[in-house]
């Protein structure tokens, strides 16, 4: 490790950035990130973009290549209006989980901000993407660019061939079921690009082989062909087994079993659910991902300052922005809009370092494994690799932080006329508050649990869905009815949604 050289000349002094300065800053940041913090990152591809391009990226969920859909145009119109009227600023950067790791930096940033942004995205987020187990297991950083290009071309080709309306109809329906298009527990198979192309060609060829008079029946569905002959009347349990029921991934089920979809429509469902699956880890690690990136940039810019590589002015500018980002308004503040993942994440990372370096008796009692650990870097790296928000909070939120945030639990029972303060940050409440907060980040708990429970293809072909209601929380009606309409379109026959109530939480 480099010893502090306070006499070193600063990397930059003015606000303007140039590509040479960016390279110098990136090299200095990289040295600290890799040699001091021990981060492990994908190669970086840092792209400088204009405000308009940033708006473009916003509307397409941040991806560099995205198929066309009217909803992205709608988001663009809204974001643009908000931006132009000054009611919404733009992010300093967007980073994409890919290999090489692409990050977009705004051209308007000053050199100090570019330094911050590089430390944050190109090293903080990048390390998280590469090392967190969810991303490793569920996303394919090497293939995402190719897959996006494929998806874009495929959908454009479909529009050409089948018309805008037909494609739009399928995409609308698929988007409505996006959140129900992920595997939460079972791991999906992971075909390569070549396999995907081959599969698609197979489907296309099959489609061409069909004469115009052929009608889709369940016999023509690929999956059923081989197992169709002997069992004229499968019993219920056998059928469920064959169709992998119950199935939580509704888009997957429709793609495989819908009696009315054509091959290209199935491929579109597949594209939508692949992208939903790609984003699923990000939804589960907001606090950790931002906490990791914020901790990394905070550590790195302070190190740069200690080494005399950035000026005091630059440090002040960076800290000003940093402080804004990690601000947590209290619940009664008009600015309050939930717990700020940057604030919570950053505070927890700093707190873990504190527990390692300077533990109190309380910390030793709560965190016997890490309190006083001489290597806080590896403790943090380990946490970043092996947890998601829910388990991370459950494991690492300390009483010290709960006091600092003055957390309390508010119980809101519909049957009760008033809201009740059920826990506050005291010895009796720490464990419950921590569990309640962790639960707030558990997607399985936040998102409705809806599964395909049955579909009798030989009978009336009704698709039966089951919503498992927890804590008596029902689906919002307007969304539900609209989505069911889309579902009927994709399934072709009636769809029912029944409700099952569980007593356990």
């Amino acid at each position, binding site marked *: 490790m480099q010893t502090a050289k306070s006499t070193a000349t600063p990397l930059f002094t003015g606000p303007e950035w140039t590509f040479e300065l960016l390279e110098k800053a990136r090299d200095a940041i990289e040295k600290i990130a890799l040699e001091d913090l021990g981060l492990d990152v994908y190669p970086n591809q840092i792209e400088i973009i204009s405000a308009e391009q940033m708006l473009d990226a916003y*509307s397409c969920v941040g991806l560099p290549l995205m198929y066309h859909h009217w909803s992205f145009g709608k988001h663009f119109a809204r974001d643009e209006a908000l931006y132009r009227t000054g009611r919404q600023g733009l992010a300093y950067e967007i980073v994409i989980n890919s290999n090489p790791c692409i990050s977009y930096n705004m051209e308007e940033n000053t050199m100090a901000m570019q330094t911050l942004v590089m430390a944050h995205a190109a090293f903080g987020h990048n390390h998280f993407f590469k090392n967190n187990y969810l991303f490793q297991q569920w996303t394919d950083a090497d293939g995402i660019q190719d897959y996006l290009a494929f998806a874009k071309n495929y959908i454009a080709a479909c529009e050409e061939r089948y018309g805008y309306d037909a494609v739009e109809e399928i995409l609308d329906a698929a988007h409505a079921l996006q959140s129900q298009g992920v595997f939460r527990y079972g791991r999906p198979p992971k075909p390569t690009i070549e396999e995907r192309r081959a599969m698609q060609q197979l489907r296309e060829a099959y489609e061409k082989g069909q004469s115009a008079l052929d009608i889709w029946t369940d016999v023509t569905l690929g999956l059923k062909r081989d197992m169709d002959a002997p069992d004229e009347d499968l019993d219920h349990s056998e059928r469920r087994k064959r169709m992998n029921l119950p199935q939580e991934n509704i888009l997957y089920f429709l793609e495989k079993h819908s009696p009315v979809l054509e091959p290209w429509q199935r491929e579109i469902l597949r594209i939508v659910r692949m992208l939903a699956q790609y984003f699923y880890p990000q939804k589960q690690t907001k606090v950790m991902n931002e906490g990791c990136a914020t901790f990394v940039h905070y550590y790195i810019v302070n190190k740069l300052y200690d080494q005399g590589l950035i000026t005091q002015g630059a440090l002040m500018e960076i800290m000003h922005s940093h402080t804004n980002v990690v601000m947590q308004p209290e619940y009664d*503040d008009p600015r309050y809009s939930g717990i700020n993942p940057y604030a919570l994440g950053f505070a927890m990372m700093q707190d873990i370092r504190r527990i390692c370096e300077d533990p109190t008796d309380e910390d030793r009692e709560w965190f016997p494994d890490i309190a006083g650990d001489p290597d806080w870097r590896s403790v943090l790296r380990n946490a970043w690799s092996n947890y998601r928000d829910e388990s991370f909070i459950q494991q690492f939120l300390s009483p010290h932080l709960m006091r600092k945030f003055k957390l*309390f639990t508010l119980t809101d029972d519909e049957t009760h006329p008033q809201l009740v303060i059920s826990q506050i940050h005291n010895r009796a409440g720490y464990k419950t508050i921590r569990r309640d907060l962790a639960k707030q980040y558990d997607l399985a708990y936040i998102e409705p649990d809806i599964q395909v429970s049955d579909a009798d293809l030989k009978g009336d072909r009704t698709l039966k869905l089951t919503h498992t209601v927890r804590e008596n929380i029902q689906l919002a009606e307007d969304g539900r009815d609209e989505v069911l309409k889309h579902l009927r379109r994709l399934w072709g026959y009636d769809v029912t949604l029944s409700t099952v109530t569980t007593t356990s939480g």
Partner: protein
Amino acid sequence: MHHFIDRRANPKGKSLGNRQRFLRRARENIKERVDRSVREKSIGKGESVPENGEKITIPAKGLKEPRLYHGPGGNRRHVLPGNKEFVVGDTIDRPQGGTGQGGRKASEDGEGDDEFSFTLTRDEYLEILFDGLELPDLVEKATVETETIGTRRAGLTTAGTPNNLNLVRTMRNSLGRRIALQRPSTKSQRELEAQVAELEELDARSPSQEDLLAELKLKLDGIRRKRRVVGYIDPLDLRYDTFVPEKIRNSRAVVFCLMDVSGSMQEREKDLAKRFFLLLHLFLTRGYEHTEIVFVRHTHYAQEVDEETFFYARETGGTIVSTALEKMKEIIDERYPPDEWNIYGAQASDGENFGNDSVRCRKILTEQLLPVCQFYAYVEIVEEAAQMLLDNNEAGEDLWQNYRQVKGEVAHFEMQRVSEPGHIYPIFREFFLPKVKG
């Protein structure tokens, strides 16, 4: 292994495809709003399409992206930061609205859930307004401008007449000079004078006071001298505005909207006419700094009216077109001298005219109006079913025939039959497209 890419020069409008799909999706609603906005818009008050686009609000129905999500209610626990005085067991009333969500935030863009607002660019607006006609680059158009002599500011000089004295610049110079030469302020002089006066009033002064007095007097003299030498305003400070005479292109235009309001002009006809006038006005506001608009309606007599009356008031009577042309000539003579104004005429009618009045119209046009007009356009609004008339330029009533003669003689006269909005545009395209020079 790391590298930078400069994407700023990449082609813009990456999301154009999404935008087009969005407009396509909402087309019905947008079209309805655009049509309504035309009807509501006042041409005269400068309310035609703004330079940077038109904000429209459409119903969000059909633009919703439904999802399955949890509704309100049930039994929930929220962990919140910033506890101040709560202890376990405290109860609080549900926030108003009773959703149990802690009060929903007001929607960010200040619009209801049922509506979606966004901005149509000017071109998109026009495209939808005129039914998908391709618009050429309007900037390229050749508007004609008359010339007069005027004056133009030409910076500052050190000499000039007092009425051109630029006070701000002069005082700024004065202040700078006074600071630079350290001219003592009036305040410091007054303070010294007060001190001297105070000392002088004393009957018996101690030797030290005498010394002080002498010193102060000396200082005061110095200040007075310096204030005399360094004047408050010095001739050096003076700055005058200068003006130079210049040929200026006249940037004022007036549009005469002439319309037949006899009983045969119904809602549809007037709506078409309004689009026609709106488009002409639109072209002109882009080309001229200042545009005015004059509405002349006629039956068997003509009168100048305001826009509201022009489009919406009912009138009955015969039809004598020449009265409107005479009225226009009269107004030009009264208020719009042709060497100062660029004059545009636009006339809409259903083509009927009384007796042999059409010949008279032709005469007024060729002899009096067209020589002073930059452009004169005539639209004849016909029945949607009158395909025969649309296809055949030669067929037509008296007025049409006479105007055809005018068109043969004068280049800046255009005429067109229209039965739907899409027909209106070509008149302008023909006239405003840059002419190929022979």
